[in-house]
C-alpha cells in the first residue's frame, strides 16, 4: 500500500511540474480555430498611456466602451501612466514576444527598436488592405519614424508644454502672472521675490522629473529650429547649447528656485506644493490639465481651478517667450502579431479607427494640436485653464518638439540622472553630456 502511495504521489508531483507545458501547447489550436472562424468576436490587448492620472483616462475608457458595444469585440486594457519605467516595460514586452495588439506609444527614437525589428505595421501596409485607414488625418502630419522615415502611428492629441501658475501665491507676493512679454530676467526677479516671501518659486523634482526644465533651458539657448538638434559631442554647437541649458538649471538651483528637497522628492510631492498654495510655478505638459481640473468622475487636485492658469515659459536670447515646446509625439501602432492573425487584425484596425475618429480626437485633444484634416476645435464648455492653453497655443510664434524624444533612451536616462550631480557641482555639464552620449548601448539608435 505504501509503495502504491509513494508511486502515486511521485507521479502526481511530476505531472504538476509539467502541467504548465501541456497547458501551453493545447491552447494554440484553440486560438487558431477562433481566428479562422473570422466572424467570432475577437479579444485584443491594448496598451496606452491613458492610465493612472492621465487627463484623458475617462475619455479613453468611454471610447473603449463604445467600441466594445459597437463591435462585440473585447478590449483587454493594460494602460498605465507614461514614464521611463513604462517605456522600458513596453520595450521588454516586444523583446519577450508578449507585445500587445494595439499600442499607443511615442513616435520618436523610443519606438526605433520594435520598428527596426519589424514588430509593428506601417500605415502604408495597412492601407493596402484597409484603404480608408487614418484617412481623416493629414498625411503630412502623421509622424514619420526616425528609424526608417516611414509612418507607423496614427496620432490622437498632440501636446504642449507650458508653465502652470499659482495666482494665489503670486497675489500674496504682489506679482502678476508672467505674460508673453515677460523676459527671463524678469522671471528670475519674480522668483527671488517669491523666495523672499517664504514660498517655493518653482515646484519641480530634479531627482525625478527634470525633463521640462531641461527642454526650456535648452530652448533658451537657441531658437525652435535649432532645438531639435541632438549633439554628437559635448563640444559641438548643439552640445554647447545643452551645456549652457544645464548650467542655467544649476543657476536656478543655486538661487533657491526649486523646493528644498528637490533632490529627494518625487514629482507628486513637489506638484502637491502647487495645490497647497506653497509654490508659484511648475512646468508640465497638456496632460497635466486633468490633474488640476479633474474629470467627470474625479475631482481635481486643486480647490479652485480659477486660482491657476497656464502661460508661456519666459524666454531669453534668440528665443521669444512665445516659442513653445509642442508637437504630436504619440500615436496608435498595430503590432505585427495582431496583423498576422485575421480576427485580431480586423479588431485592431477597427479599434484604431474608432479611437481616431474626428469626434473622439476632438474629445481627447481639448485644445491641443491634432493631425485632423478638419483642424483643431475648441473643447465643449472649456474651463479657464483650457481657455488659457488655447490662447497660449494660438499665440505661439514658434514651436519645437521635445528634443529629449530624439535622444536614445539609455543616453537620456543617463543624462537626466546626472542633473542632480550638475546642480550640486560634482559633475560639469559638458562631462555629463559626453558621458551620456558615450553610454554603452546608447549608440543603438544613432
Amino acid at each position: 500500500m505504501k509503495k502504491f502511495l509513494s508511486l502515486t504521489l511521485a507521479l502526481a508531483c511530476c505531472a504538476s511540474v509539467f502541467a504548465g507545458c501541456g497547458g501551453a501547447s493545447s491552447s494554440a489550436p484553440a486560438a487558431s480555430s477562433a481566428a479562422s472562424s473570422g466572424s467570432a468576436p475577437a479579444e485584443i490587448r491594448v496598451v496606452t498611456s491613458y492610465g493612472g492620472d492621465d487627463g484623458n483616462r475617462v475619455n479613453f475608457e468611454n471610447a473603449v466602451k463604445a467600441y466594445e458595444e459597437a463591435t462585440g469585440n473585447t478590449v483587454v486594457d493594460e494602460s498605465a501612466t507614461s514614464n521611463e519605467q513604462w517605456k522600458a516595460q513596453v520595450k521588454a514586452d516586444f523583446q519577450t514576444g508578449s507585445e500587445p495588439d494595439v499600442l499607443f506609444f511615442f513616435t520618436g527614437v523610443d519606438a526605433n527598436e520594435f520598428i527596426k525589428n519589424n514588430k509593428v505595421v506601417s500605415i502604408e501596409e495597412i492601407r493596402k488592405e484597409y484603404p480608408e485607414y487614418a484617412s481623416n488625418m493629414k498625411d503630412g502630419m502623421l509622424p514619420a519614424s526616425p528609424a526608417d522615415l516611414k509612418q507607423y502611428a496614427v496620432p490622437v492629441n498632440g501636446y504642449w508644454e507650458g508653465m502652470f501658475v499659482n495666482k494665489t501665491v503670486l497675489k500674496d507676493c504682489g506679482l502678476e502672472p508672467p505674460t508673453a512679454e515677460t523676459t527671463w530676467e524678469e522671471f528670475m526677479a519674480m522668483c527671488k521675490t517669491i523666495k523672499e516671501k517664504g514660498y517655493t518659486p518653482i515646484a519641480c523634482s530634479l531627482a525625478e522629473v527634470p525633463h521640462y526644465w531641461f527642454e526650456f533651458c535648452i530652448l533658451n539657448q537657441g531658437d525652435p529650429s535649432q532645438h531639435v538638434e541632438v549633439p554628437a559631442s559635448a563640444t559641438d554647437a548643439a552640445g554647447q547649447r545643452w551645456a549652457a541649458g544645464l548650467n542655467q538649471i544649476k543657476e536656478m538651483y543655486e538661487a533657491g528656485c526649486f523646493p528644498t528637497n528637490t533632490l529627494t522628492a518625487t514629482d507628486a510631492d513637489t506638484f502637491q506644493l502647487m495645490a497647497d498654495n506653497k509654490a508659484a510655478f511648475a512646468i508640465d505638459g497638456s496632460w497635466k490639465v486633468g490633474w488640476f481640473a479633474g474629470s467627470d468622475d474625479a475631482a481635481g487636485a486643486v480647490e479652485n481651478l480659477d486660482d491657476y492658469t497656464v502661460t508661456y515659459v519666459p524666454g531669453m536670447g534668440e528665443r521669444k517667450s512665445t516659442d513653445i515646446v509642442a508637437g504630436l509625439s504619440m500615436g496608435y501602432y498595430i503590432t505585427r502579431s495582431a496583423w498576422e492573425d485575421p480576427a485580431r487584425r480586423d479588431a485592431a484596425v477597427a479599434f484604431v479607427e474608432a479611437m481616431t475618429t474626428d469626434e473622439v480626437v476632438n474629445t481627447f485633444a481639448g485644445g491641443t494640436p491634432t493631425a485632423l484634416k478638419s483642424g483643431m476645435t475648441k473643447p465643449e464648455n472649456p474651463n479657464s485653464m483650457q481657455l488659457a492653453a488655447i490662447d497660449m497655443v494660438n499665440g505661439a510664434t514658434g514651436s519645437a518638439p521635445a528634443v529629449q524624444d530624439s535622444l536614445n533612451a539609455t543616453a537620456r536616462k543617463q543624462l537626466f540622472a546626472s542633473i542632480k550631480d550638475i546642480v550640486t557641482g560634482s559633475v560639469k555639464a559638458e562631462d555629463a553630456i559626453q558621458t551620456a552620449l558615450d553610454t554603452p548601448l546608447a549608440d543603438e539608435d544613432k
Partner: protein
Amino acid sequence: MNAMIYKKKWPLILFLTPTFLFLTVYLYYPFLMNVWNSFNRIGGMGEASRGLNNPPYENYVKMFKDPLMSTAIKNTLILMALTVVIQVGLALILALLVDQIKFGSQFFRTVYFFPIVISATALGLLFNLIFLYDGGMLNQLLTNIGLITENIDWKDPSHFFGTLMMPVIWQYVGFYFVIIVTGLNNISTDIYEAAEIDGASGLGRIRYITLPLLHNTLCTCLILAITGALKVFDLPWTMFPGGMPLDGSWLTGTYMYYQTMEMADVDYGSAIAVMIVVLGVVISQLANYIFKEKDY
C-alpha cells in the same frame, strides 16, 4: 517495512526528481545563463546577445572601477552588519522577554511577527508618508512638540542612511524573533529548574544555559541575515528610487535592478548578480566557519 523503503532507491529518486528538475529549470539553468550573459553584450531584457564583450570580462573590470558599485557594496556591508547586530540582537532580546512571560506571550508573538506579512512595497509607501518632508508624520510631530521649527528632509544626504536602515531592519525583526522563540521552546525546562535549585539568577540562566543552547539557532539567523541583506530590494527601491540622494543609497540589489531594468545594461546587471551570489557564498561560509554549529 521502513528498512525496505530505503533499500530500494527508486522511490527516493522519484520523490527527488521533480524538485531537482524544477530547481534545474528555474534556478541552476538561469544562474548559469546569467554567468554567461555577464560576458556578453545585451541591450535589453529578452534581447539576444550581440556577441561577447571585448574583453569578455569587461563588466567585471568595470564593476571594480564603478564608484556607484563601491557605494552599493559599502552600504550593503553596513546593512549586513546592522542586520546581524540590531535585527538579530533585538529579536533575541524580544524573544527572551516574551519567553519569560506566561500571560500574553501569544499576543506579542503575533504583534512582532506582523510586519513580515505586510508587503515590503506597502511598508515603503507607509514609511514614505512618515518621513515626508512637507506634511509628513514625523515632521508634524516634531514641529507640534516644539523640537523643530523647520521641516527636516529625512532623505537628504545627512539623514538618509537612518531613514533607509530603520524600516529595513524593523521589518524582519519578527522573522528572527519567531525562529529564536522556536529555539527557546526546544530547551528543556528541566535544565532551568535544575539551575534554579542550584541558585542561578535570571541573567545567569540566560548567560550559561539559554545562549549556549541557542547557539545553533543564532547561527541559522546569522546566515539568513547575511544572505537576506544582500538581497534587500523592494523597500529601499520604494523609498529611495534611483539611489537618491545623490547616488548615496545604492544597495547591491537596487543597483543591479537599476542597471538591468532602467539602463537596459543587462550584461552589467548580470555581472552584478554574479557578484551578489559570490559575496553571499563567501560571507556566509566565513560566518559558518567563525560560528561553527555545535553538537550537544
